[in-house]
């Protein structure tokens, strides 16, 4: 066959492969008249079926398909698999209901079946290690066994966030002392048994929603440094965790000191929001006492000294007692945060004056964060959500944070087919302060088509308050306070009159004594006794956006939005 025929066969094969097998014959009948090419395509299709997972890596071949097939299955006649929580290099963690204990939620971990037998031992070892460790900050093992020839492990389900989530939403720094103490205490217990975790990273540190307690998870590759030959199991390094890996881990054995290194990286990241070594600073990774530049972040000299030692390329120079190291870091960070708080309190007066100025100067986003978490959190003016184009200035720095080409916004933007919105996240402390002291959410909106929403969403207290303004189909505008999102946007409603859309000021005030909110439109109270709801508490923060509710599209102009915590 000539090269052109070969290429045509290749293309037809690739297209046929994406079809359902039953449709392939009809496809080839229609597309392929040359019998030589047809026979080549058929030969390829047959080879593809025979090839199985030839050349595929275990973690890329099975997982996607395998991880979903168990949904709905009952493992060991007890755990009803509900969904996939996550999958790593070796296996899947499922969320399941434990039929034997009041249908409580648990996590069931299983390895991909594509892994050979010796590797199944990693899960057995995790079982052994977890059974041996009994610590409040280490995830508790509930059950282990074998199902359909595969070992599984059941651990407690912790509803909450990973440390990575906290890093992303900016709350990791203030929570650092408490987190460090808990991890330190847990790791000291782990090391006391002569076990190294070997895979410490923000994704493996959970913070419970209920009591803020830390749980270390994923002891899948944890082991005693000198017992490897005896257990005869395999090591899998996943490229993504290189950032937390001590230099010696790639070249030689992992020691307990490698965990100290990982804790150093994690602490640095909690405090500064970035990794200690950038990609192009690899040479620093190999310094005995590396230079660290915590740009912009306040880290005391003593804490920095500790971190430099923890990040030494030489394992013997790192602090040996990780519990003590974490305790020292925690108290250093704590006193640092206390000093910052005092400094900021004196800046509050100055900041309020700037906030007043922002109202005078039109078209300014005053991203004022009062570090004592009282008062103004955000102000937004001159916003056209249909285009998502803004001119936004960070009032603290005077710099443009949201440019017309949509870069640099200090928040989150989300788009779907039906809606688009901006989220300015609330910090945990802001949320608690707001619900305790009361708050006011103000927005000036001209709802032209579809719906416009203005939301204060507090995930930490599981409460969300939605102002939904929309064209009501009778040529008028209505506002609804949402208390149900599913199956429809339901809630108490007020008619705002007929006529062309116009700018109206919406002002919701939450009273902590009655735990209800009332809504004023243009200075007149139209709805009250609003309790909010707790559906879809994500994304959280000050949310404003549009949806093509009851129409083809959503068009709206925001004159400004502002969230304020009452003094």
């Amino acid at each position: 066959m000539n090269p052109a025929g070969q290429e045509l066969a290749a293309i037809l094969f690739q297209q046929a492969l994406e079809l359902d097998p039953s449709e392939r014959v009809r496809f080839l009948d229609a597309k392929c008249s040359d019998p030589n090419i047809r026979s080549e395509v058929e030969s390829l299709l047959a080879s593809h079926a025979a090839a199985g997972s030839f050349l595929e890596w275990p973690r890329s071949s099975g997982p996607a398909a395998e991880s979903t097939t168990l949904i709905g299955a009952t493992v060991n006649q007890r755990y009803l698999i509900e969904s996939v929580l996550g999958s790593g290099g070796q296996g899947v963690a499922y969320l399941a209901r434990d039929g034997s204990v009041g249908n409580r939620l648990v996590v069931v971990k299983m390895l991909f079946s594509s892994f050979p037998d010796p590797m199944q031992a990693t899960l057995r070892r995790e079982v052994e290690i977890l059974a041996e460790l009994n610590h409040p900050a280490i995830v508790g093992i509930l059950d282990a066994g074998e199902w359909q020839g595969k070992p599984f492990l059941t651990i407690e389900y912790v509803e909450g966030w990973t440390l990575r989530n906290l890093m992303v939403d900016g709350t990791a720094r203030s929570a650092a002392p408490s987190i460090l103490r808990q991890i330190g205490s847990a790791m000291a217990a782990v090391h006391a048994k002569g076990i190294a975790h070997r895979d410490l990273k923000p994704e493996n540190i959970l913070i419970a929603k209920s009591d803020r307690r830390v749980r270390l998870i994923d002891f899948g590759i944890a082991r005693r440094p000198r017992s490897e030959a005896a257990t005869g199991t395999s090591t899998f390094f996943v490229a993504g965790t290189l950032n937390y890996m001590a230099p010696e881990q790639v070249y030689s054995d992992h020691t307990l000191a490698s965990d100290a290194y990982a804790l150093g990286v994690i602490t640095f990241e909690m405090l500064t929001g970035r990794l200690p070594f950038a990609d192009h600073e690899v040479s620093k990774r190999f310094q005995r006492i590396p230079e660290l530049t915590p740009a912009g972040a306040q880290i005391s000299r003593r804490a920095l000294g500790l971190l430099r030692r923890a990040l030494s390329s030489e394992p013997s120079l790192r602090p040996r007692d990780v519990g003590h190291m974490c305790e020292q870091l925690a108290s250093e960070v704590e006193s640092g945060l206390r000093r910052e708080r005092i400094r900021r309190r004196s800046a509050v007066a100055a900041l309020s004056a700037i906030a007043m100025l922002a109202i005078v100067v039109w078209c300014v986003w005053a991203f004022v964060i009062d570090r004592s978490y009282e008062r103004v959190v955000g102000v937004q003016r001159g916003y056209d959500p249909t285009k998502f184009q803004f001119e936004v200035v960070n009032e603290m720095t005077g710099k443009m944070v949201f440019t017309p080409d949509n870069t640099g916004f200090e928040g989150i933007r989300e788009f779907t087919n039906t809606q688009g919105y901006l989220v300015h996240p609330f910090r945990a402390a802001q949320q608690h302060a707001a619900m305790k002291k009361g708050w006011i959410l103000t927005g000036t909106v001209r709802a032209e088509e579809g719906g416009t929403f203005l939301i204060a969403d507090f995930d930490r207290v599981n409460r969300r308050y939605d102002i939904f303004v929309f064209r009501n189909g009778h040529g008028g505008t209505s506002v609804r306070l949402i208390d149900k999102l599913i199956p429809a946007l339901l809630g108490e409603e007020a008619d705002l009159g007929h006529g062309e859309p116009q700018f109206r000021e919406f002002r919701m005030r939450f009273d902590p004594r009655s735990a209800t909110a009332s809504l004023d439109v243009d200075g007149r109270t139209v709805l009250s006794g609003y309790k909010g709801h707790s559906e879809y508490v994500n994304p959280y923060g000050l949310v404003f956006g549009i949806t093509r509710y009851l129409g083809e599209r959503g068009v709206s102009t925001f004159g400004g939005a502002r969230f304020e915590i009452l003094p």
Partner: protein
Amino acid sequence: MPELAALVYQQLRELVGCRMRQERAGHTLQATALVHETYLRLLEVTNPSWKNRAHFFGAAAGAMRRILVDHARAKRSKKRNPQQILKSDAASLIGRDSVDYLALDAALDRLKSLDERRCQVVELRFFAGLSIEEISQALDVSERTVKRDWEYARTWLFRELSKDAV
């Protein structure tokens, strides 16, 4: 950039050799980790002139292929010469010792003469352990194209190797 390829090869071989000396039987290391670590090491050597990740991965994939094939060849000659005992070989190091690397190497050369890009996809995917997304960035083609190329090349190579076996 031939010097770059040589440098990558040398570094990667050193790393694989170093791992092999330390490893005990049954240990495996992902090719991805080896390649990423080589990248870090090379950044250290060539810093800061080198920024092209895509170029690096191409070179690293080629180097991994050479290392694995060289080791397979050495293993074959070792069978004829039993005095020379290797503790483990590169293929089992990355957990892929069921593949006939010599036959695969020859088949890949034939594939390359038919279609160079599909051969590159195999090198990046199989030897460097890159994800579809990473390959799409490295070769500057869509993910869908990478997926299609990968399925085709994998099938084609499997058929070639089955022919060899018969």
